[in-house]
């Protein structure tokens, strides 16, 4: 049998190979015939009371986050309002289970439609309550156990069900739906249970329902949101190697965790992280880094039927800024085009997209889209230390135009009396024209995008294997431009950082620091390794 690879979203990091154990929701194929309303009302109340009893019993065995979630569910069930609509329906002759399901469907839909992701994730709590009460109405008692070290596969996993299972012997969770911000994801992270969500209906089709249990082995990588069903020997070896590397990286990161990065001779280097999705921040302690050096906002613009509106963008940006708790967060405005096409936005079939309408160039010809993003960014700037960075700037006029758009967004927000602040406005240094004559660009800060700078300096595409050896960020021409940028920043007192792949390469780090850089932005999982590499560098004597 060949392996099936499912890509979802990361919810809790960790790698595990184990037996897949599918569980189904209590919702399936159930309907009771309506008795007289008084009997149905009594049945519903008894099911609710017994559900509260279950949850109280469960709450007495757990602590911390788990207990808080159960307290919330108990309070919900204990509120007369919750079953009010169901009671009215029963009065009209409906069966208790049908009436309860209809009432809960309204609640669930209401939360699923919420603009705020935190509230949206609460739909899972209502599904949990719905199913628990339905189970009691059907006279079914819950007996779900999980074999030690198994990977639980389900459509959604209610938090109360997660808490009822014993995770002390290992185990992992794979969900067809679900959200990284759900209560159950929070619990999985707190208990170190690997978890991937949003894996799609395929998961349950392959795993088989409880009705047709089939012994299936699977491998899960919670940190990458991947589940492989029926992994072959090669995949198993790859997964155990990944696990070993992850364990080692965790050990290294733990060593450097709360220590600020500095060279062997004591020069402080700021290490920031690159982020594309707030879900990546789950389980990362902000103390690990000096802030976020690059938020790629492109992801927001993918996989949507329409472009994200101001509120949707604001909600995502806010989560990132709140995570950073006062540390600087640099948002890069939409960097589409080049190797990152977005259907309906970027120009299709450009003969050379890397030299085409990409990055800021695209934003300036689509000002209506740019304005929405700038407004959302100015609003989030009121909540923390927010900086805005423009990609693919080549001429000073582009920066001036972008600044005018920013001024207009701020004026609009002031008119609308929406809370906002002016973020620092900086530019990416990717185009050689900028690196050669940075003095022409009145930016508040500079961030070197070493991947693009390298490909433009050496005229070697970053996505072509045949010229990969030429696209070398340690080429003397590239390093000279980096050194001149660092010198320019020092001379005018503006920050210059670097956020390309080169920043995470332990071999290149000595050269980058030697060129004068004092801030590097890397993927979160590289932070430990980068701090370790920095600690082995001596700058006295290595100076330029």
């Amino acid at each position, binding site marked *: 049998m060949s392996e099936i690879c499912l890509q979802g979203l990361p919810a809790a990091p960790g790698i595990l190979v184990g037996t897949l154990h599918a569980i189904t929701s209590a919702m399936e194929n159930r309907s009771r015939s309506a008795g007289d309303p008084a009997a149905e009302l009594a049945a519903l109340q008894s099911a609710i009371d017994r559900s509260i009893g279950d949850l109280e019993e469960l709450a007495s065995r757990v602590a911390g986050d788990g207990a*808080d979630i159960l307290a*919330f569910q108990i309070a919900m069930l204990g509120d007369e309002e*919750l079953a009010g609509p169901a009671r009215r329906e029963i009065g009209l002759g409906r069966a208790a289970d049908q009436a309860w399901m209809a009432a809960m469907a309204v609640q669930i839909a209401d939360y699923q439609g919420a603009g705020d992701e*935190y509230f949206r994730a*609460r739909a899972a709590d209502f599904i949990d309550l719905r199913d628990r009460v339905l189970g009691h109405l059907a006279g079914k008692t819950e007996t779900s156990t999980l074999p030690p070290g198994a990977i639980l596969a389900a459509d959604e996993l209610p938090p109360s069900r997660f808490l009822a299972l014993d995770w002390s012997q290992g185990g992992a969770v794979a969900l067809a739906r679900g959200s990284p911000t759900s209560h159950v994801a929070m619990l999985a992270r707190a208990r170190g249970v690997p978890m991937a969500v949003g894996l799609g209906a395929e998961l349950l089709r392959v795993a088989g329902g409880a009705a047709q249990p089939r012994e299936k082995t699977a491998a899960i990588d919670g940190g990458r949101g991947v589940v492989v069903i029926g992994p072959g020997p090669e995949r198993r070896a790859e997964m155990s190697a990944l696990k070993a590397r992850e364990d080692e990286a965790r050990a290294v990161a733990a060593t450097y965790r709360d220590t600020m990065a500095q060279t062997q001779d004591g020069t402080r280097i700021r290490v920031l992280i690159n982020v594309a999705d707030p879900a990546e921040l789950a389980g990362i302690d902000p103390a690990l880094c000096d802030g976020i050096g690059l938020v790629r906002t492109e992801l927001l613009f993918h996989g949507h039927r329409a472009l994200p509106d101001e509120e949707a963008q604001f909600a995502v940006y806010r989560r990132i800024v709140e995570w950073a708790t006062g540390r600087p967060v640099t948002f890069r405005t939409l960097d589409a085009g080049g190797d990152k096409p977005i259907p309906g936005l970027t120009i299709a079939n450009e003969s050379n997209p890397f030299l085409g309408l990409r990055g800021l160039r695209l934003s300036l010809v689509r000002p209506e889209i740019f304005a929405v993003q700038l407004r959302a960014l100015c609003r989030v700037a009121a909540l923390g230390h927010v900086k805005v960075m423009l990609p693919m700037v080549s001429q000073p006029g582009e920066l001036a135009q972008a600044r005018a758009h920013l001024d207009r967004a701020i004026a609009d927000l002031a008119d609308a009396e929406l809370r906002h602040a002016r973020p620092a406005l900086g530019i990416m240094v990717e185009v050689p024209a900028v690196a050669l004559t940075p003095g022409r660009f009145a930016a508040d800060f500079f961030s070197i995008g070493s991947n693009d700078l390298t490909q433009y300096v050496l005229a070697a595409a970053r996505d072509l294997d045949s010229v990969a050896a030429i696209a070398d960020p340690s080429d003397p021409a590239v390093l000279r431009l980096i050194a001149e940028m660092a010198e320019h920043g020092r001379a005018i007192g503006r920050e210059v950082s670097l956020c390309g792949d080169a920043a995470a390469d332990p071999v290149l780090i000595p050269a980058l620091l030697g060129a004068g850089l004092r801030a590097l932005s890397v993927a979160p999982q590289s932070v430990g390794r980068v701090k370790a590499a920095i600690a082995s560098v001596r700058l006295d004597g290595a100076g330029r």
Partner: protein
Amino acid sequence: MNEMKETIISSGGVTVADKIRVTHATGLHARPSVKFTMLAKTFAADIEIAAGPEGPWIDAKSIVKVMATKVPKDTLLHVRANGAEAEAAVLALVDLVRRDFDEGSGGG
């Protein structure tokens, strides 16, 4: 956060009202809502909250309704109470929000 408390004598008796900025990171979310409604239920007064001066006013003792309001961070939460202990109820609830529900601005 020094908005003035107001006391209105209406035909229905004494209504005490106040407002407070919600600073909790996730707004009036699961855990804060549990604390808020549990505290509200310790008072005999009728207590209502709203996310704006125009309402809609909802029952502060119902967690189903309080959560359904989905009050986000930075909302100026309006609280009003009528009947026995109205003043104490408003004071206590506003103070709970001011204390950030006795938790750091963490997750929810």
